[in-house]
């Protein structure tokens, strides 16, 4: 049937059909291919490939609408109907299409368009290297170590040979800096030189097992994902909780978390490992980038869009070395990434916002919290299945047994009472106080009293009715209501000069007006209050439990303040105060419904009565237990619930993500579901479960079949060991990135790392560092340079300059000042004072380097995005506004001045001089070698004239110290 229709259509149009090959293609070739053909594809559009020609270019609109020349932009452009878009453009030297040519195209489109398969063309026949499936290549013969085998094979092709092994001192320096970011001590160099054949393995195992390793390699990852301690942008505020993520990365490196798991933890620890709440710190990955708090408040649409863009860019660059963000405005010009792919990635993160995310640092505490919070929720919902479960019934029964009888409360003995606004107060026979006379708008009642209770655990406030009050009270407002803004207690001890404030833990009452719960009378906010409307004309009471019992010696006085600041004369009419020493749980003011149920013998209670009691008792118990738990901690991350400068922001469900034509917020297109590259779209059972979206992306990335992930990570590690990756653009494996120098080796390493090493970075380091390739000399070789000047084939080791952190940490280590304390809040290397707005004013120049903590490793310093440390900046510490997969190298007079004159350097010159005591030891510390006789003479002369620190200063500025051979 369907075929029948097709055949009929074809038959009907065949009479008018224009021959593509003979009539259409020559027109396109002559007029269009120059800019939209095999060589150039302006606006991402080409007319030599059927798929693209029909679909359209970057604009996202189809260029050719089947069966409608009138609707096809191609015709409008070439005909000049759309003057602005006239094609070929006026500026070009090409003539306009003739009317006949335009007519041919019209007829061709109206009739189909028919575009035979043999002329379909192909965008690209072979996938780009990084997208080819991972297959483990055979290791070439010629060397025992697989890395050496691959390297030798390529060298042999060029008739090159590797360099000889490097001397032990240089090798140990190289290894120690690579793995720990610190220099070896002179003693270690000495021992290494004397050690046996297994010295490399034992030295590297020792280094991998110190925590210095994680500190070093965490820095690389933090560079890669542009992590910093502040927001950047207009309000470059400190993130006091960002450090928990930094500590997580250090720990993960030291623990050697397998790579797939490292991916999963950072993207969706909450989804994969909900029990292990400590891993919430890993989600700091999601918050690593910049944050424009100003735009978040005033330009939310563009803020959310660009904030997600930053996260998409970071995630795809860091894990799969892909520049997905290039497809924000149009299909990626060079890589097979569509705009749909890009927005599918935005959809992955559409359910989270940046801010502090709270969690329990201890999984056992988290378990407790979940239990009691669950019980509390069940109590609120009156969930019979939970509340009447045996264990909970037992809790309720126990409570009922300990429930204090009425005589637990001892009336307080009022001594003085005072109305701030001059109401008349009178003590009645039952010990209560009645207010009359002037009815001020607001008032504060202060009562001084004593009690016979020795250890006070709670106060009870009774609001009583009286015939003299409107509606019989208990309030003085015309409707009988009362608003108690704040209820406060102070203790005046005998002989004490001033009273002590006594904080409350909880308030409960027999009745609350909606929106005016009793807790609001102890929240410290005078604008909120406890009230009892419409339950007027009857007494009410509240119980205020103390945060901790207070011992009252004889003569101690209690001062109770009742602030009634609502206005409208919502004042207390008649009240009474009592005190008790009874344990807290038994003291709760029981709501009327439960109170009634309690009067029914237990055996006769209906289920609804049981639930009324259990709901009340268990809720209170849950509150008690939750209050006892240690407080949650925070990490700056992104989450469905996160706290930032706008408060606690909760996203009920992920935002809808639409494709934006040309990346323009004003041109929304179709809704795009969450997904990843190459048209991967996630099939999720619950579209509203945002964590599942992140988990799906983590699964996609960490999938063993993902060709990018495994190549990306091994190449990154290679980059840090050799100063350059096998692909020299570690975060870009696209067509604009570098081509790998040794594609087979890269693939072999990727598969080996994934399958044999099970994603262990430490195993990868071991493999690389035990190769002869790594251990060869960096010495020059003119003949080899002539053939491979860039050393792409690794006929020698690359010389690298120490990075900023290693230079700073070395100076500390060499001068004997390095403080190895790990973790915790980031350490400032500046003094600060309040700035004009929320960003403080920092001064790096007057910082005292003797400050405790100032000599900790650089990974623990505050990295301020907008107010970078000028010293580390001069040494090429990257701008954390952007991802930094590679550190730069620069040489400038300002860098030289920083190394010569910065207070950090000078301060430590003095320390090292003092520690070394002479030129020979200073050379050993800084360069791990003896001074030559000539050097000894020169440096001694300088030290004699200007002091030993002057000689150390020269060493700290020397290229020999700053470069690794």
């Amino acid at each position, binding site marked *: 049937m369907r075929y029948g229709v097709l055949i009929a259509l074809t038959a009907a149009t065949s009479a008018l059909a224009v021959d593509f090959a003979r009539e259409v293609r020559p027109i396109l070739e002559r007029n269009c291919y120059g800019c939209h053909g095999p060589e150039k594809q302006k606006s991402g559009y080409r007319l030599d490939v059927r798929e693209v020609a029909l679909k359209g270019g970057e604009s996202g609109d189809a260029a050719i609408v089947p069966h409608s020349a009138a609707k096809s932009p191609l015709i409008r452009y070439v005909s000049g109907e759309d003057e602005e878009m006239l094609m070929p453009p006026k500026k070009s030297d090409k003539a306009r299409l003739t009317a006949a040519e335009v007519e041919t195209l019209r007829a061709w489109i109206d009739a189909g368009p028919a575009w035979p398969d043999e002329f379909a063309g192909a965008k690209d026949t072979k996938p780009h290297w990084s997208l080819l499936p991972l297959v483990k290549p055979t290791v070439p013969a010629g060397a025992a170590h697989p890395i050496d085998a691959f390297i030798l094979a390529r060298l042999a092709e060029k008739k090159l040979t590797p360099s000889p092994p490097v001397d032990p001192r240089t090798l140990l320096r190289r290894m120690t800096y690579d793995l720990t970011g610190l220099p070896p001590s002179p003693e270690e160099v000495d021992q290494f030189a004397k050690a046996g054949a297994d010295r490399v393995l034992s030295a590297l195992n020792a280094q991998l097992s110190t925590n210095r390793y994680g500190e070093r390699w965490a820095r690389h990852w933090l560079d890669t994902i542009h992590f910093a301690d502040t927001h950047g942008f207009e309000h470059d505020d400190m993130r006091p909780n960002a450090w928990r993520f930094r500590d997580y990365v250090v720990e993960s490196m030291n623990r050697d978390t397998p790579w797939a798991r490292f991916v999963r933890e950072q993207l969706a620890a909450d989804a994969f490992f909900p029990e292990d709440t400590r891993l919430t710190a890993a989600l700091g990955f999601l918050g690593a980038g910049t944050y424009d708090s100003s*735009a978040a408040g005033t330009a939310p649409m563009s803020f959310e869009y660009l904030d997600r863009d*930053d996260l998409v860019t970071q995630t795809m660059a860091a894990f799969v070395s892909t520049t997905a963000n290039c497809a924000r405005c149009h299909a990626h010009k060079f890589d097979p990434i569509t705009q749909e792919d890009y927005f599918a990635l935005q959809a992955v993160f559409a359910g989270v916002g940046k801010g502090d995310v709270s969690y329990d640092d201890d999984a056992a505490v988290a378990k407790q919290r979940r239990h009691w919070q669950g019980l509390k929720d069940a109590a609120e919902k009156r969930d019979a299945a939970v509340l009447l479960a045996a264990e909970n019934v037992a809790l309720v029964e126990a409570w009922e047994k300990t429930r204090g009888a009425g005589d637990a409360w001892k009336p307080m003995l009022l001594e003085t009472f005072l109305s701030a606004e001059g109401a008349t107060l009178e003590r009645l026979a039952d010990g209560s106080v009645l207010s009359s006379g002037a009815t001020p708008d607001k008032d504060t009642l202060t009562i001084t009293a004593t009690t016979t209770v020795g250890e006070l655990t709670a106060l009870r406030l009774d609001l009583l009715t009286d015939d003299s009050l409107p509606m019989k009270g208990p309030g003085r407002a015309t409707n009988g209501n009362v608003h108690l803004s704040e209820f406060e207690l102070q203790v005046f001890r005998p002989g004490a000069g001033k009273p002590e404030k006594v904080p409350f833990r909880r308030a409960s009452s027999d009745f609350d007006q909606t929106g005016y719960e009793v807790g609001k009378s102890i929240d410290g906010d005078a604008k909120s209050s406890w009230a009892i409307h419409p339950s007027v004309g009857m007494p009410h009471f509240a119980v205020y439990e103390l945060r901790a019992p207070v011992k009252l010696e004889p003569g101690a006085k209690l001062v109770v303040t009742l602030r009634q600041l609502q206005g409208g004369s919502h004042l207390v009419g008649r009240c009474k105060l009592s005190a008790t020493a009874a344990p807290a749980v038994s003291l709760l003011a029981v709501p009327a419904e439960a109170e009634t149920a309690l009067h029914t013998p237990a055996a006769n209670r209906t289920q609804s009565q049981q639930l009324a009691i259990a709901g009340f008792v268990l809720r209170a118990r849950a509150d008690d237990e939750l209050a006892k738990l240690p407080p949650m901690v925070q990490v700056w991350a992104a989450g469905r619930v996160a706290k930032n400068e706008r408060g606690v922001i909760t996203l009920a469900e992920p935002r809808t993500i639409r494709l934006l034509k040309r990346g323009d917020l004003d041109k929304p297109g179709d809704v795009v579901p969450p997904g990843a590259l190459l048209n991967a779209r996630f099939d999720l059972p619950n579209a509203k479960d945002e964590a599942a979206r992140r988990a799906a992306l983590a699964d996609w990335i960490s999938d063993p079949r993902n060709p990018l992930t495994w190549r990306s990570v091994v190449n990154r590690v290679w980059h840090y060991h050799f100063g350059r990756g096998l692909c020299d653009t570690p*975060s870009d494996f696209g067509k604009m990135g570098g081509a790998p120098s040794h594609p087979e080796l890269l693939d072999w390493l990727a598969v080996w790392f994934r399958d044999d090493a099970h994603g262990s970075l430490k195993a990868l380091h071991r493999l690389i560092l035990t190769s002869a390739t790594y251990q060869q000399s960096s010495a020059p070789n003119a003949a080899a340079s002539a053939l491979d000047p860039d050393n792409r084939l690794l006929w020698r080791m690359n010389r690298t300059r120490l990075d900023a952190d290693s230079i700073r940490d070395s100076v500390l280590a060499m001068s004997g000042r390095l403080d190895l304390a790990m973790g915790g809040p980031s350490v400032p290397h500046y003094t600060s004072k309040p700035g004009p707005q929320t960003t403080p*004013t920092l001064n790096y120049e007057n910082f005292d380097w003797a400050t405790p903590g100032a000599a900790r490793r650089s990974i623990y310093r505050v990295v301020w995005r907008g107010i*970078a440390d000028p010293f580390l900046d001069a040494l090429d510490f990257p701008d954390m506004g*952007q991802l930094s997969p590679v550190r730069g190298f620069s*040489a400038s007079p300002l860098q030289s001045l920083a190394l010569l004159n910065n207070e950090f350097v000078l301060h430590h010159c003095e320390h090292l001089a003092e520690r070394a005591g002479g030129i020979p030891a200073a050379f050993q510390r800084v360069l791990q070698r003896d001074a030559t006789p000539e050097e000894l003479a*020169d440096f001694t002369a300088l030290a004699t004239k200007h002091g030993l620190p002057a000689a150390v200063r020269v060493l700290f500025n020397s*290229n020999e110290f700053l470069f690794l051979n």
Partner: protein
Amino acid sequence: MLSRRNFLTHSAGGIASVALSHILAGETLAGLPELNGGLHHRAKVKRIIQLFMNGGVSQMDTFDYKPELAKQHGQMSGPKEKPEGQTAVAGAVMKSPFEFAQHGQSGRWVSSVFPHQAKRVDEMAFLMAMASKTSVHGPGSYMMNTGFILPGFPCMGAWISYALGSLSEELPTFIVLPDPRGLPYNQKANFSAAFLPSRHQGTIINAAAVPPVPNLFADKKHAFTGAEADRDALALLQKMNRQHAAAHPDDTRLDARIASYELAARMQLSAPEAFDIGRETPATRTAYGLDAPATEDFGRRCLLARRLVERGTRFVQVWSGPQGAVQNWDNHGNIQTELPPMAANVDQPIVALLDDLKARGLADDTLVVWTTEFGRTPYAQGSLGRDHNGGTFVTWLWGAGIKGGIAHGSSDDLGFKAVQGVTYCYDLHATILHLLGINHEKLTFRQSGIDRRLTDVHGHVIGEVLA
């Protein structure tokens, strides 16, 4: 004075001098002498002073005269919903509280807040229809400085340093003189080299500090430093580094570091003189307003800017106003009281700078650019202030290669949006690069798979303002 290239050859002692110029220059493309220092065509401008008014100058209260505002004053004709980036819902149309008058032969309208600049309008080329893609300070300041609304991109000064290098090795190539009351929005990130080599970033000079260049000299409390100790230490360092480099003859980075210490020593010699405005005549100091409290600070920094460009600094950026709610151009609360003091800070010094550059012949190859990150709304915020408005604002250009007395583009009748001859930062940057002899499309740096440009994928040279 040795030229850059001569100096390099000398300092490297002939060893790998070609490669060395590659690494020092290699991260600098370096202008070509035959193009008057330009990179792609003949340069008309060799040095630039940019005056950046932080906070968003109200265009309709300064240079963009809008008589229609008075007619519609008090009408609620603005957008009903708060536009993205504005901090409040638009209030009623508000006329300018200041008098406007026409000035010069060009008849340019200028408000009474700029009496000095009004006298030089025939020398300035006005971009009357600049627009931004944002109305938020952070992204807006990034955009005007780096061409992108996101952090992490090099600013124009860094690009120029990267492209052309220095005119003198004795001073930093790109100097920033922030308002001593505080850094602008985005802090130092507005002056970042981002992914360009870090040596191209702006050197921030605290005009009041001694020495103004950070780490120029060691703190005197260290007895092992000082003029003689520094000289002896440097001599030994260079000897040691040369011996080291001789053993590693194929690594130009080693030579580059050796050269950079020579340059540092020269900077130590020349920088103190360059920053010493005490050497200026009393007449000059008075002209810049150094003896009046309102103009003293900005005047000092303008004078410093002149001394710096005169001595070979390529690009000086002078900021007016710190971030924050006060003491800048972000006049949300009350235009009538907040704008005039800011205007008074800068007006006389700016004109003194222009006149001084002219008198010294520096105007022949110096460009002065006056700008801000965005404009303000014709609708009142509260009842007396104005809100952010990326829709339209004004920039002026003065000096070498500029056609004076003309105005390019215009905004709508209320000054809410640019409507004709609209220019973005891309066009401004393209024009400035053009004057420096640089084709903005060819000045690129590969980063994360993209050949990045100051002008992104945009930018047209604004031919109308060129002489």
